[in-house]
């Protein structure tokens, strides 16, 4: 079924390809305007993007850039306008804090409650660039640090194992000094200054020599002080002007160590990386590449990819999903963890083990399941605990990551599907389209006629109403293509009493208008869309840099996308290219 584009929104959509505008659905100011005939809004005056981050000035600059070239972006990738933000402190995410504490104090250290991350455009690393720590967050952090350090220092054997010595008597300042200095260098991601060494070793001594205390306790609290310090809690990457780069802000060697460790290991640098920084090796792209290759080869590199996978596919929706146990008797809460792990393992396998085409994950059939999940999917069980590789048979209608339970069950409602939610996820995260919020005063949908009315039929009114059509035409036709899988991610041929109609179409800027029927065909069709590769690149780019990708990044992103395509979409190569690029090594781009 091909959705016909009319009412003048077509003109706006075409304009947005050249102008980099985000399409909006009708006025947000008042209901009056929303009721105007859509023909009157013929695209001559672009409506401001509703996402509050796009000011009218941003829209103008985006339009200006493209039309000045005289050419449309070949990828169809839409990027908002805006100025480059100055570098800011990056507050460690919960995941970074957890991994940092584990790397600094031992893998078995207890990790308490931590302040929640703020997600912007789906990524906590972007929120980290501006979020503050609340008073309650200060409390939680202190408690977590005290618990973690308390655990290690409750047992001299653990201290010995973690730090290589055990500070015994108050005169044993060599050990305590060494622990503080080495720990501090990793935690602050740079050598401690003399004042800092004095501050923390002084603390160890004064607490260590208090009545009823001992040096071990003093060292414990000195490390706690390091871990509570903003120099640990925030990644401080501000850049310094580089004379040989026309005074542009360039990240220092230690700042690069901090960035590389954050990006690849979701944690603090190790001593080798800090030594490389100290030796000046991270001042050049070649030096950065050498360390990056070492970091990515370490199994710790899986952590960052797990974070990226969860955020790109929105697994937080799965985490809080409720399902109707009467309608879905085979569903269990334990399937959520299994589905999340399935998704992560598929990505890790492609990037690190197979070193294959990342986009082939959109339609491939290899997966990883435990027996609970295998049984749920109707795959053979192994009889063993844990996860094993499996393959969906050729006749299966399930293929690609869109067929993963985490995606299907996460982007759905407790009792039924939401084609709009699934379509929104694909549009925003895989096609980089910005879907504004709904307009105000949305009239209620007509009451449901009966169980024989399908969601497709109920949602048809979205595309009949001009106020709603602009945005819903981007989402619903994609979501309909996944209607052959239900709200818990199982294949179905019936929706209530009606046969499932899973036909859909990929149309809009950067899309080739392919029609498809069902999830597997959708995955294959997506894989062929020119915008998909560049979109993935821009998502990774924004996550790595901790800020939205903007029009001014277009050239950098398109170069990365071209190399990504030339390398058969190797994501590990993409990461290596990205961290050696100008965008990552400088806080200010070339003019």
């Amino acid at each position, binding site marked *: 079924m091909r959705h016909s584009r009319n009412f003048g929104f077509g003109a706006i959509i075409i304009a947005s390809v050249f102008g980099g505008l985000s399409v909006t659905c009708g006025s*947000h100011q*008042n209901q009056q305007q929303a009721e105007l005939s859509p023909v009157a809004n013929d695209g001559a005056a672009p409506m401001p993007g*509703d996402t*509050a*981050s796009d000011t009218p000035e941003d829209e103008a600059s985006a339009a200006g850039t493209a039309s000045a070239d005289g050419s449309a972006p070949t990828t169809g990738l839409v990027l908002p306008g805006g100025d480059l933000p*100055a570098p*800011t*402190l990056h507050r460690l995410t919960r995941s970074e804090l957890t991994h940092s504490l584990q790397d600094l104090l031992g893998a078995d250290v207890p990790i308490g*409650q931590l*302040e*929640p991350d*703020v997600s912007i455009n789906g990524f906590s690393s972007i929120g980290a660039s*501006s*979020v*503050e*720590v*609340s*008073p*309650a*967050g*200060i*409390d939680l952090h*202190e408690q977590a640090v005290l618990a973690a350090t308390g655990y290690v220092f409750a047992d001299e054997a653990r201290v010995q194992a973690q730090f290589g010595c055990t500070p015994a008597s108050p005169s044993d300042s060599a050990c305590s000094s060494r622990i503080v200095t080495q720990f501090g260098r990793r935690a602050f991601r740079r050598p401690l200054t003399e004042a800092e060494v004095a*501050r*923390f070793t002084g*603390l160890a001594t*004064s607490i260590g020599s*208090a009545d*009823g*205390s001992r040096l071990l306790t003093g060292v414990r*609290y000195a490390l706690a*002080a390091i871990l*509570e*310090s*903003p*120099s640990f*809690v*925030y990644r*401080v990457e*501000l850049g310094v002007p580089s004379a040989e780069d026309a005074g542009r802000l360039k990240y220092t060697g230690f700042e690069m160590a901090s960035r590389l460790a954050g990006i690849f290991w979701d944690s603090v640098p190790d001593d080798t990386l800090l030594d490389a920084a100290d030796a000046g090796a991270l001042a050049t792209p070649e030096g950065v590449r050498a360390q990056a290759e070492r970091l990515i080869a370490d199994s710790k590199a899986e952590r960052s990819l797990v974070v990226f996978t969860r955020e790109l596919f929105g697994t*937080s929706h799965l985490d*809080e999903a*409720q*399902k109707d146990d*009467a*309608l879905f008797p085979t569903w269990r809460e334990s399937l959520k963890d299994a589905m999340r792990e399935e998704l992560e393992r598929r990505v890790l396998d492609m990037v690190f083990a197979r070193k294959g085409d990342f986009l082939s994950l959109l339609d491939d059939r290899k997966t990883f399941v435990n027996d609970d999940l295998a049984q749920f999917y109707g795959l053979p069980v192994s009889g063993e605990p844990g996860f094993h590789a499996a393959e969906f048979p050729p006749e299966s209608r399930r293929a690609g990551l869109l067929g993963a339970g985490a995606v299907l069950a996460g982007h759905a*409602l*407790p*009792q039924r599907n939401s084609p709009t939610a699934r379509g929104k996820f694909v549009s925003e995260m895989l096609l980089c389209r910005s879907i504004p*919020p*709904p*307009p*105000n*005063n*949305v*009239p*209620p*949908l007509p*009451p*449901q006629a009966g169980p024989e009315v399908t969601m497709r039929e109920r949602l048809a009114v979205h595309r009949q109403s001009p106020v709603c059509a602009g945005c819903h035409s981007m989402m619903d036709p994609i979501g309909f293509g996944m209607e052959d899988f239900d709200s818990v991610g199982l294949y179905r041929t019936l929706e209530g009493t009606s046969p499932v109609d899973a036909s859909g179409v990929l149309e809009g800027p950067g899309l080739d208008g392919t029609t498809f029927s069902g999830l597997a065909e959708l995955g294959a069709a997506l894989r062929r869309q020119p915008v998909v590769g560049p979109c993935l690149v821009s998502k990774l780019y924004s996550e790595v840099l901790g800020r939205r990708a903007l029009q001014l990044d277009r050239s950098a992103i398109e170069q990365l996308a071209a190399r990504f395509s030339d390398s058969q979409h190797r994501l590990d190569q993409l990461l290596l290219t990205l961290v050696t690029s100008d965008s990552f090594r400088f806080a200010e781009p070339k003019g």
Partner: protein
Amino acid sequence: MRSRPISRRAVLRGMLVGGVSVTVPLPRLAGMLNGNGTAYAQGAPLPVRFGTWFFGNGIIPDRWVPSSTGQADAWQLSEQLEPLAQVKPWLSVLTGLSIKVPNNSPHASHPCAALTGAQTGPGQVQSASIDQLIAPAISGDTAFPSGIHAALSNQTGATALGLAISYRGPNAANPPTYSPTALYQQLLGFTSDGTSRPVDPALLYRQSVLDAVAEDANALRQRLGAQDQLRLDHHLDGLHELQGRITRLAMPLSTGPLPNPDQLYPARGADGLISRERGQAFADLLVFALASDLSRVFSYMFTCAASHGDYADCGLANSSFHEDYGHRLSKSGLSAATRGFNTGVKYAMSNLADLLTKMKSVPDGNGTLLDNSCVYITSCTSESQTHSGNDYPLLVAGKAGGRLRSDQHVRLLDENVSKVPFTLLNALGGPTETFGRAEGSVSSGIAELLA
């Protein structure tokens, strides 16, 4: 450079030298009040308390707005407000007011305006919320100057404000706790059965650690741009607050037993679940904290803006409250969806009643905790299906130590919702000329709210 609380550490060190603890009795024993019970014997006024209580997904105006206006016997509770019957004399129902900021983002623009008087900005919230504006004026030297922030449901909402209703400013939410047990553990350290106990030396060590941490913060601050300096300043404020709490841990209050959620409500359900018992566990703890003057400010998020939460506890299982009931999309049809939505609103009000009733039952000064408190109650929309900002749900509970009039329904057609928080800010926070920004800005309040 921020000054460090040298005097606090000296106090602690002095205690440690002495080797014994100092137990401070609850400040509001009758013997410490003046003859009228309206002030401390030394003349200082009794503390007033403020809280915000928030529920997602709005109301059905026809069933929320009481049929008549006026005071006392002149008005009666509507159907959706009926659960609040026991606290009607402490209630002001404000109806007819409208959110004036444009509804750019349904379920975000409106609650943001109701809480902060401003539109959502690029980083979500642009301005501080009403509880954080009032807090500095009333918190005094309490253990939690920024307040205690708790929430019942941890499920997110559609195109909404995120999971916080209290903001110190842009990018500065006060994320709530979902765990009554965690709140209990945190409050426990401030309480004592009245017997002496030695001060834990760890308290002094923690203070010393925080002094060192503040030195780091001050050193880092000098290298930063303006936005980051502000972030560090606020970080330092948080460290300062924590040091205040640690000092108080060395001087626990002699109180009655702190209600233990795991003993009182063992079957209440996991953190983040919507259940009446979890709400009651939180109500116990918030009331305790307010009554013992550990905090004078709180925020409580029953459900977030546009919450997808599952209201199984009131019979609406396996559903998304926002979709199935707020937007009447339930498979069971429009009538069932409307009934369910109505049930959900009343269930929310029952939860609110639990808190307010407990506040009413605690003696405080010459009256009750509810007499000396002000609770501001609102939601993320009015009529849920249309995302309307007209006839907005607004309640004020409590008499704020005699500053507020109550037991009334006041209807103010098309007036700016901001007038309610403006009035409360003036009544509790001291004279203020304006509240809010742009369309949400007001410079006058609602006379009927004032005593």
